[in-house]
């Protein structure tokens, strides 16, 4: 099956608030599909409709070819889910959680290798309450992998984690994809979506405002790139005029910033370095700044991501 998730015209209303409004998308087998957007954009509502935890007000949802409302139990046998707000009893130990949850599936994988794979081996006898945020999330990933799922849902997986723990979790998510599984995740970190996801749907006020691969989204924005570097004593007038030939150039003391539009053919940074090398200019602290998904969001909605 190529299309693991198919959503058509999904709508969910809470009272007077339209949480999800006419959302349609597909998730392909073997990809990491990300749904990004600010808090309250409708990400969790969407994922919970896919998981069968909420009933859509309109639209059709198919997950692994199943209707989550009608075949919820079968779907839960074949998918792994990590929820944004969930917990285990404080005094339940790591191994006990895996052992108990295994008993809920018809054909669970052996949980012992999962412990090692997720780096929880030495936390095996630790009670849930004593785990760090990152360890709890790794345990939840392990629980989500117990049914040997075709599809794994990860809702706001790294919220509240420090950067180091976040990077470790990203590696684990890539491992899941490497095993041929499909990952559907939500996040409000644009950086996470950009670095982790094969395709990204940007959600705002319950609607999908863009859906593509991160490079295509960024390229589509047509945002300018910047190359900045420092020249001891400041750039000579000759260098300045040569740089102006590449792109708009600003000089602040010894710091030089060259702006340029990516045109797909030439790379701004290689042009600048080529020029500096040709003129034998000694430079340091060279940095390039390219547009990110953060800028894409700003460009599409006119707003910064609320965090």
């Amino acid at each position, binding site marked *: 099956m190529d299309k693991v998730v198919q959503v058509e015209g999904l709508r969910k209303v809470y009272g007077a608030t339209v949480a999800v409004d006419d959302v349609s998308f597909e998730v392909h087998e073997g990809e990491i599909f990300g749904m990004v957007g600010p808090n309250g954009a409708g990400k969790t509502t969407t994922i919970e409709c896919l*998981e069968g*935890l909420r009933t859509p007000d309109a639209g059709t949802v198919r997950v692994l070819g199943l209707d989550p409302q009608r075949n919820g*139990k*079968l779907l*839960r*046998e074949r998918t792994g*889910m990590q*929820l944004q*707000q*969930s*917990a*285990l*009893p404080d*005094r*339940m130990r790591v191994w*006990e959680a895996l*052992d*108990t*949850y295994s*008993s*809920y*599936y*018809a054909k669970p994988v052996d949980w012992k290798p999962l412990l090692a794979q997720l780096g929880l081996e030495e936390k095996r006898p630790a009670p849930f309450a004593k785990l760090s945020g990152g360890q709890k999330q790794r345990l*939840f990933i392990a*629980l989500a992998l117990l049914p040997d799922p075709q599809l794994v849902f990860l809702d706001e997986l790294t919220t509240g984690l420090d950067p180091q723990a976040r990077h470790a979790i990203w590696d684990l998510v890539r491992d899941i994809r490497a095993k041929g599984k499909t990952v559907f995740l939500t996040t409000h970190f644009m950086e996470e979506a950009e670095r982790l996801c094969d395709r990204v749907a940007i959600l705002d006020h319950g609607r999908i405002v863009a859906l593509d691969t991160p490079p295509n989204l960024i390229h589509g924005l047509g945002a300018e790139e910047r190359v900045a570097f420092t020249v001891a004593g400041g750039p000579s007038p000759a260098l300045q005029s040569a740089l102006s030939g590449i792109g708009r150039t600003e000089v602040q003391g010894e710091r030089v910033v060259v702006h340029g539009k990516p045109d797909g053919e030439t790379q701004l940074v290689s042009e600048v370095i080529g020029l500096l090398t040709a003129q034998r200019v000694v430079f340091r602290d060279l940095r390039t700044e390219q547009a990110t998904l953060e800028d894409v969001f700003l460009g599409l909605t006119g707003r910064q991501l609320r965090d």
Partner: protein
Amino acid sequence: MRGLAKTAWMEAKLFLREPMSAFFTLIFPLMYLFIFGAISGNEPAPQYGGQRMLDTAVPSLIAMIIGITGLMPVTMTMATYRERGILRRLRTTPVASWVVLAAQVIVNFAMSCAGMLLLIAAGTLVYHVRFEGNALSVLGGFILSSLSFFGIGFMLAGSLPTVRSAWVAGMALLYPMMFLSGAFFTVDLLPKAVRTISAFMPLTYVVNLLRGLWAGDAWSKHVLDAGVLVGLLVVGVVVSTKAFRWES
């Protein structure tokens, strides 16, 4: 079935690791037995119609175990599991809701039984408490009373919004019942107004039923007690099934 067995075993371990549950169901009634024993000993006393005090204290304390278990561990566990998202996590697995509830019933019943056996063992060994009833009959009364009180616990946990409110409601029901149901004092000696209040307390019927069965009464002498508890059980099952929610 494997899921139920594993869950019940896990819940039993969690029950014993939770100091509150383990203390109040297993140790607290035993403490009262020794306090009563120290106060009065187990000699015939006129205020108990010539009966020996601890002979009636043991079935009363068994009733107290039932009240405590239904209103503390059952209520608090379910309310906590919902508020903290533990039920939400369970809901993402194929496990059925009845398995989650059945595991609680099994474990809390087993723990109440353990509390009862400790009490009977201590009463028999230390104070030579006499038992004149039919063991199966007492067990039947114990099962009926326990299930009725678990029903109250599930109703509270299902219908109150937070753990704190469930705790307050449980305590507000439990404390007056412990003192006014006859579990501690014979209600016959209390003023009429108090006896009227006592008649509205479910635990009063548990105390009457178990004390009677313990002393050798036939069930036919306790139709009212049994009827009230069966009625409570039915209401408990209906309301708690309707009120059950996976999340708050």
